[in-house]
Each structure stands twice: as structure tokens, then as C-alpha cells.
């Protein structure tokens, strides 16, 4: 059966089919694209965590690791013994001494008694400094306390 009449023009059905094909080729899937972009933005928002403390430390590494809750307050001690503190939202700020650290911890705990704290210390730091930080946290009745560590790989064991 021919798709054209004797004058050489295509049948109306054929014309409509060709138009449908042409339309489908020209259409931009904006709805699907918008959905995808929204999804990607959501992923970035969920996964991205601004690093509140930029202190450069050589972290100890452990096999047993707990997941540190999001938004935990951070107290860092670098190799030189410099302390910095962040409530978990803003960037960390230097802390001059243990008294100032105690005031900072007390302030954070008074605002949110369940806020966890993370101690981020260089592996070569003297324990005495870390001990003072833990004592300050305990004195203020801080909730959960974590020692930040890197994951130790099985190949490194033994």
C-alpha cells in the first residue's frame, strides 16, 4: 500500500506521524532536567560539610572507629600546642588558655547540653594538653566526647 496519493502527496496519517517524530526530536526534557538538577543540589547540600577547623594535624589512626555525629563542637590542638575551638557551625578560633577553653565549653553546653565534642589533636601532642581539654569538658558536664582519628588500613596492621 502506497503512503502517497496519486499526486505524490503523503497520506494524512503519515504526515501526522512525521510531525510527532519531529516534535519528539525537538523537545527539551526540561522537567526531567530540573528534577536532576534539584537532586544534585540536594546531594551537595546533604553531603557537603564545611570543615569548621582548618588546623593541620597528623591524626592518630585506629582500626576501631565510631562515627562522629554531625555538627559536633571541635577542639583542636596542633603540634605546637596551639588550641582552637569551634561550636560546630562557625570556623574555629584560637583559644589562649585552658580558662578560656572552659568558658567556651561551658557556653556551648549551656546552649545545647547534648552537643557532642570532638578533640582533634596531633598524634605527637603531649598527653597533658589533651588531658586538660578532657578535664575542661568533664568539668562542664559535656555530653559525648570523641577523639578524632583516621581509619587505619588492614595493610598497616602488624
Amino acid at each position: 500500500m502506497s503512503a502517497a496519493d496519486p499526486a505524490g502527496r503523503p497520506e494524512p496519517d503519515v504526515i501526522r506521524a512525521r510531525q510527532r517524530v519531529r516534535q519528539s526530536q525537538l523537545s527539551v526534557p526540561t522537567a526531567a532536567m530540573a528534577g536532576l538538577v534539584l537532586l544534585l543540589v540536594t546531594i551537595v547540600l546533604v553531603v557537603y560539610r564545611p570543615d569548621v577547623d582548618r588546623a593541620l594535624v597528623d591524626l592518630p589512626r585506629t582500626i576501631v572507629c565510631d562515627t562522629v555525629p554531625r555538627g559536633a563542637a571541635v577542639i583542636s590542638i596542633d603540634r605546637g600546642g596551639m588550641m582552637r575551638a569551634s561550636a560546630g557551625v562557625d570556623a574555629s578560633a584560637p583559644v589562649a588558655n585552658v580558662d578560656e577553653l572552659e568558658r567556651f565549653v561551658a557556653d556551648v553546653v549551656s546552649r545545647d547540653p547534648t552537643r557532642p565534642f570532638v578533640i582533634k589533636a596531633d598524634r605527637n601532642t603531649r598527653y597533658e594538653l589533651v588531658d586538660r581539654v578532657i578535664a575542661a569538658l568533664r568539668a562542664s558536664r559535656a555530653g559525648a566526647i570523641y577523639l578524632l582519628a583516621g581509619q587505619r588500613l588492614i595493610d598497616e596492621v602488624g
Partner: protein
Amino acid sequence: MLNLVFLVVVSMMIAMVLSADKGLDITAATAAPGSGNAAGAEAILVRVRADGTLLVDGKSLESERIAGYLKSKIDPGSSPATISRPVLLRPDADAPYGTIVDALDELRQVRARLRLGAELHISLAMHSESASALAR
């Protein structure tokens, strides 16, 4: 499209897991004496010296041998195996922090290595407080 969404969701889950900070929860280890952490029994003392070496009940041990030593401290006849004596980790003030974390990590693995029925009661002695109060 559905495949793409699925892939993106899986990627997101993996990224979330990988991006999470890891650390040792020492809340219980640093709890105040008498808060239910340490039993009344005499503690097994793990001392971390300034040079990074370990003394376990006065004996020099490498950290990898702690589990082997603690095997002898399993309560006789306990089933599942249990070590009821608390472990007191007492670092010297000058001890490198990394060594203390290494020791804590080893102690946290003892349960799995010795197939204990319960976690060890680990306490971290504080210099700013009376260590003897923790050890009791």
C-alpha cells in the same frame, strides 16, 4: 531516568558514609568515678610512658600483645568469657597522644579478639584528677 536517579541516590549514600568523621568515643572511658563504669575490682593498669612504651601491670608489653596478656585475666568459669576487672589507662603527662590512642584502639579490639561476652570497662586516668580515685 530511573536508573540515573538510583545511581545518584546510591552515590549519595556512599559519599555520606565516606565523608563522615571517624573517632573513638571516650565518653564512658572518661566518665566520673562512681558513674557505673568501673567495677569495684582491682584495675588492670596500662601505663603509657613518655617514650611511648607500655607497662601493663608493671610489665613492659608491645601494644599488639595486650590482648594476649588480658587472656589470662578472663574470669574463671565465665561463659561467655568475661573480664570483670576494669582496665585503667594511665598515660604519663609527656606521653605522645598518638600512643594513647593506639593503646585505646588495642583495648577496644580485645573483645573481638578474645571473643568476650561484654566490652572491657576502660577508664582513662586524668592527671587533673585523682587517678587513684578512678582505680579505686
